[in-house]
């Protein structure tokens, strides 16, 4: 497969097709609409299911239904739309059926704006709906990674019968850059034995999130927590750059992580011992590797396009062993490399004093 110029939203859509997505349900919202538009022709061309729902509420419940029927299914939206999907996400988590959700995050709260943001970190990693659950959350920092993580998302969803959210920001969704798409996977997967396919020659299958009995509900929750513990132990993913001798560790994901990479390179050119740690999974947060790095660096500088959300997970990971500082931009503003370099220089000097 050759590299080609691809827009993030379109790349995610085509990657989903190649991963074996059998059904897509969605609702238009900027800045993810190209994804829905692409699916509207591509899925139909392949004889697969595409449906534009009447709302995000309906879209996520269509996803829920298709997931119960045992197919690989996806929806995509952006922040306000994800808020509307939270009810369905909770039911899906409570029923343990697999699905893939793409959140091309924009500025908030409220209607906010349509510019890139990371202000839904809490929403996707910690409060995707009522009840005790976390989706698996993947945060791409390039169009290529958006493709790779879409493929991974379908695998993880099936493997754990769980929700996987691709948390892209508007920048990832809207930008074009060269990337390579993988070949088409075998299609379709056989329907799993737990799926609703009609009680033909077997006992009936029931998929529900309702357990009126306290002990049954607790037993279900224990099972769910055991699954999340397994996910935390084996699915943490991260990328890093120049961490070997780093004294200051910049931590950022998605677009912020990518720009931080440029800033760290500029800092290195100036001879500053600065490294980058870029979480690729936001849930599970890559705390194992970060806690190792915390033993060798003097300070962490968290960079996000929000008011400081992932910083809470960074603090939990480093357990107060080193100072954790923050730099964020909001409202759809994206930090520039030279802007971040100035911040890095300031904290670098401060960390040298502390050391």
């Amino acid at each position: 497969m050759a590299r080609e110029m691809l827009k993030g939203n379109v790349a995610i859509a085509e990657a989903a097709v190649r991963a074996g997505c059998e059904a897509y349900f969605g609702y238009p919202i900027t800045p993810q609409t190209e994804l829905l538009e692409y699916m509207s022709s591509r899925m139909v061309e392949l004889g697969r299911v595409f449906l534009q729902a009447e709302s995000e509420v309906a879209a996520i419940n269509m996803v829920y239904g298709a997931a119960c029927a045992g197919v690989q299914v996806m929806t995509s939206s952006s922040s306000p739309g994800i808020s509307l999907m939270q009810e369905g996400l909770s039911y899906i988590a409570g029923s343990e059926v697999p699905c893939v959700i793409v959140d091309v995050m924009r500025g908030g709260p409220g209607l906010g704006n349509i510019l890139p943001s990371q202000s839904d970190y809490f929403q996707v990693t910690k409060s995707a709906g009522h009840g005790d659950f976390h989706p698996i959350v993947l945060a791409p920092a390039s169009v290529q990674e958006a493709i790779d993580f879409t493929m991974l998302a379908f695998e993880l969803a099936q493997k754990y019968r769980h929700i996987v959210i691709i948390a892209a920001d508007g920048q990832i969704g809207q930008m074009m850059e060269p990337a390579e798409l993988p070949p088409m996977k075998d299609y379709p997967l056989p329907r799993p034995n737990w799926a609703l396919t009609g009680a033909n020659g077997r006992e009936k299958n029931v998929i529900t999130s309702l357990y009126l009995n306290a002990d049954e509900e607790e037993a279900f929750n224990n099972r769910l927590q055991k699954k999340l513990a397994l996910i935390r132990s084996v699915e943490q993913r991260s990328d890093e750059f120049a961490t070997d001798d780093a004294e200051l560790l910049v931590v950022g994901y998605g677009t912020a992580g990518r720009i931080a990479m440029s800033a760290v390179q500029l800092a290195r050119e100036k001879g500053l011992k600065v490294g980058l740690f870029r979480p690729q999974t936001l849930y599970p947060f890559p705390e194992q590797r970060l806690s190792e790095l915390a033993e060798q660096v003097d300070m962490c500088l968290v960079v996000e396009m929000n008011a400081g959300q992932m910083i809470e997970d960074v603090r939990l990971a480093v357990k107060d062993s080193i100072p954790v500082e923050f730099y964020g931009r909001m409202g759809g503003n994206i930090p520039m490399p030279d802007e971040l370099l100035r911040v890095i220089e300031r904290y670098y000097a401060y960390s040298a004093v502390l050391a």
Partner: protein
Amino acid sequence: MTIDIIPIEHMQVVYDRPEALACNHTHYCPGCTHSIAHRLVAEAIDELGLREQTILVAPVGCSVFAYNYFTVDGCEAAHGRAPAMATGIKRVSPDKTVITYQGDGDLASIGIAEIIHAAARGEKITTIFVNNAIYGMTGGQMAPTTLPNQKTTSSPSGRDIASTGAPLKISELLAQIDGAVYVVRRSLHDVKHIRQAKKAILTALKVQQAGLGFGLVELLSTCPTNWGMTPVDAMHWVETAMMPYFPLGDYKIADSVHKLG
């Protein structure tokens, strides 16, 4: 007078539990017509030989456990979202028979958008709409179908239509939608009407089998517990109070359905 005793081996079974109905105690209150509605749906599934290919979407409300009372595959939707969930199932499994079973709070209030758009898309699903003019499971609050001046726990002085609006007539509303090809209202208050309801459910399932479009059977039903009536009085109230406001009838029978015979 002599009585002929028929040996048991010569007896004929004339009334039995349908195969599609599970051998379970239900949690429904005495006199509630959900049990009748369940039996009719199960009989219709059996008569059309659909049990092994049916998927039932249960609502939130008194019939939340409907999936426990049938022997077909089933799932539990969020409140009002059964038509969306059924859409997802049917679109990826067009050869299956997909039924939503919903009450009036679920369908006519919180789920009004989902039912209207499922009908508008002509989803090839069947909705059994149980209208008893009240929220049963939460203990008898006002529903969109609660009658004018009807007392409920959230309209203790009687429903004041000046402030709460008039009851929604769902069958009339959905009949306006092109994608809805079969929309009828029946009642479960006596034997004659129960037989008519059964026939309508059979037709609705045949409409789905033939892939004609969206079908809905509204069933006027009782809630003796929350109406504060005996089961017999509740049956009488359906006839005397509900039927004048919610007239029985065929609100939409598309030409394609007529052709089914």
